[in-house]
């Protein structure tokens, strides 16, 4: 019997911060102190609060230690585990109140969350199937195989109101129904696929689920296969996620060993096998038809719909494709019922949504909230607000396909319909927070550079359209734009939206349209006043030295191009023809004597 449990976060964020060494240190030192039999050591998936990682939690107290280093391990063992005294200096502190929080569940970050898809992340060891089973894992599969007809499964999913979490929000039950109704060819083959090609920059929900709770996806795919009549599935996952790939592979092997995957699952006569396929760095492969083309081993180009994948998908067979987070909800819906799931969320968007909080926010990390929660709750309460006393300017959702939510709309409840109405999209769940120092024209340009690069080139509206759009944005940020450009750019946006072949192209203009809608004045400042209000667009900036200058010569010594001259103890001057606007002088100045205009 163990008297304590030490959980060490093994998610990508903490892992990158040496959580692996912390785990090893615990393992070694617990053994040295003869505690290996008393203290259980577990490497878990992501706890969500990546900003203060690496994170260690010790039960039964639930003590939440943040920013832990391998050097802290001896103290944690001797104080907490042996003497039973909390190591206060490592306990998580609320950044606003500076109050020490003893347990994870007491933090503001966790209090307002509702964890369904993330229920096991940071709780169980993802590399041990027994722990998943101990938390009701594979119960839903047993229920489905022994008590339910395939159509009943689909009816439950339909009644729950679950919608696709990959971005478009298509009703999951309906998708399964279409595929169940589809008549297969003479081979009788249908496929179940999982989209784990999470390509939106700033989004890491799916990665964390695969790293923290891989069995939940396997179980749900098996349930889906039973519902539509499939015996082969594929998980298409980004090669950029090595830890997730490794854990899903371990999970598949363990499920096979337990007879929960493969031939004659649980003696029910139902067969389902699962194969992992790796992406190779093409954003467009997150689009459903492109993803299937890629699994077929070809260039991942999308194809026109219809025929829809439900009828003709992977290898020309009826196929369903759902996103990781969508699958992570399925087993809970089967176990707890459609009504339970539908009781959470807003009228048309049921359940919860996971968001990856990033950018200018204190608590960067992973949060799961009921649909219909306001952006204010997410940013101020859960996210802990904007660091360095800056002002919130906008949040970007939906990545390169989405738009921004300006500060004045911070009280809009987040769900599919509301976000669409204000010109953004739910997207897969990346939520990037921006403050007054971010230039919205520059952000639009950033996303267009991304989509232009990632356009597969198959259709002209996207290939040429995104290139032209980016040219307009470059022209504006370099100070050469005209007001006519704005109009032309807007027209071009709608042309691309209406004519591109796939979702990538159709949504590519969104970042431009939404910034034009809410931050038109910033575009006009760039065009008319030749000024970048946030001080980001280099071509429009100039640096000047004010009378605060003490003549310490630090700026002149650090200027990489020798643009600053002046005598010791006298005011210095910047030669604007030489200045490359790198900002080093301003960073180095100890007297705040250099200003950017």
């Amino acid at each position, binding site marked *: 019997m163990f008297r304590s449990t030490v959980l060490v976060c093994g998610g990508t964020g903490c892992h*990158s911060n040496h959580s692996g060494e912390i785990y090893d240190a615990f393992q070694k030192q617990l053994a040295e102190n003869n505690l290996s039999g008393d203290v259980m050591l577990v490497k878990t998936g992501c706890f969500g609060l990546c900003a203060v990682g690496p994170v260690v939690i010790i039960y039964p107290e639930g003590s939440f230690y943040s920013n832990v280093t391998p050097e802290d391990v001896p103290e944690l063992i001797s104080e907490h585990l042996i003497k039973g005294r909390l190591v206060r200096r490592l306990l998580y502190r609320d950044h606003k109140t500076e109050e020490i929080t003893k347990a994870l569940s007491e933090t503001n970050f966790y209090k307002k969350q509702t964890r369904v898809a993330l229920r096991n992340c940071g709780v169980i060891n993802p590399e041990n199937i027994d722990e998943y089973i101990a938390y009701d894992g594979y119960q839903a599969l047993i229920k489905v195989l022994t008590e339910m007809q395939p159509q009943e499964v689909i009816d439950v999913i339909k009644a729950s109101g679950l919608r696709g979490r990959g971005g478009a929000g298509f009703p999951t039950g309906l998708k399964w129904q279409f595929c169940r109704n589809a008549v297969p060819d003479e081979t009788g083959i249908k496929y179940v696929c999982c989209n784990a090609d999470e390509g939106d920059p700033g989004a890491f929900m799916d990665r964390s689920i695969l790293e923290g709770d891989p069995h939940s996806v396997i179980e749900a795919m098996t349930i889906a296969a039973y519902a539509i009549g499939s015996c082969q599935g594929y998980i298409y996952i980004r090669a950029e996620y090595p830890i997730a790939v490794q854990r899903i592979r371990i999970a598949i092997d363990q499920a096979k060993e337990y007879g929960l995957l493969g031939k004659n699952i649980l003696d029910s006569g139902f067969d389902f096998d699962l194969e992992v396929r790796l992406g190779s760095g093409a954003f467009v492969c997150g689009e459903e038809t492109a993803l299937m083309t890629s699994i077929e*081993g*070809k*260039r991942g180009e999308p194809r026109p719909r219809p025929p829809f994948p439900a009828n003709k998908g992977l290898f020309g067979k009826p196929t369903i494709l759902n996103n990781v987070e969508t699958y992570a909800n399925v087993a809970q819906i089967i176990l707890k019922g459609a009504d339970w799931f539908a009781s959470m969320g807003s009228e048309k968007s049921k359940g919860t949504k996971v968001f990856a909080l990033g*950018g200018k926010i204190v608590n960067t990390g992973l949060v799961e909230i009921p649909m219909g929660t306001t952006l204010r709750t997410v940013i101020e309460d859960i996210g802990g607000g904007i660091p360095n006393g800056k002002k919130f300017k906008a949040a970007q959702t939906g990545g390169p396909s989405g738009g921004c939510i300006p500060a004045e709309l911070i009280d809009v409840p987040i769900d599919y319909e509301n976000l669409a109405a204000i010109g953004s999209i739910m997207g897969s769940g990346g939520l990037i927070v921006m403050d007054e120092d971010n230039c919205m024209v520059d952000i639009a340009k950033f996303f267009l550079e991304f989509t232009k*690069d990632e356009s597969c080139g198959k259709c002209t509206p996207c290939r040429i359209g995104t290139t032209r759009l980016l040219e307009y944005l470059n022209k504006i940020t370099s100070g050469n734009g005209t007001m006519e450009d704005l109009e032309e750019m807007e027209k071009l946006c709608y042309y691309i939206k209406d004519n591109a072949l796939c979702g990538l192209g159709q949504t590519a203009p969104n970042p431009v349209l939404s910034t034009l809608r809410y931050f038109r004045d910033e575009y006009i400042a760039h065009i008319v006043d030749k000024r970048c209000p946030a001080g980001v667009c280099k071509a429009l900036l100039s640096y000047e030295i004010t009378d605060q200058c003490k003549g310490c010569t630090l700026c002149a010594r650090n200027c990489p191009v020798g643009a600053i001259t002046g005598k010791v103890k006298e005011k210095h001057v910047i030669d604007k023809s030489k200045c490359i606007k790198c900002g080093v002088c301003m960073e180095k100045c100890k007297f705040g004597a250099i200003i950017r205009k």
Partner: protein
Amino acid sequence: MAKIKLTKLPFAETPEQAKALDAKLEELKDVPGGLMPALQQAQEIYGYLPIEVQKRIAEKLNVSLEEVFGVATFYAQFTLQPRGAYQVAVCLGTACYVKGAGDIINALKTKLGVDSGECTEDGRFSLIETRCIGCCGLAPVMTINSNVYGKLTTDQLDGILREYM
């Protein structure tokens, strides 16, 4: 899609590499959609995808070289250029970008004297820009092989690069 850069370096392989590739191709030749995994394995073995290797894959999997080349040049992770001993990768995801990843990559270009996608002449460093690698809490982030450096500032770069000299 990025421009295709072909390498001028001559192709050389060890018998072990050839044997490893043959074994993988034997496994994959009847797998539906086996071309992608084959290229991934080949890149794992050789570090990049020389045209000689692409020809062998085409033969063994019974697809045209045109198709192999098409796939190899479609995906950003496949490279036709040899890699440096240390691959310096700067994340240009949104979170990193808003926290100054642009300055980091520019500074590295100057320090290493290469453009992104290129390898230094001594074969020590290659520089690439990556999409979001998902540890946005550490933004801005770069990786050198499997080591991750987070919350970076440009003045840390010299010290970090020195570790690999």
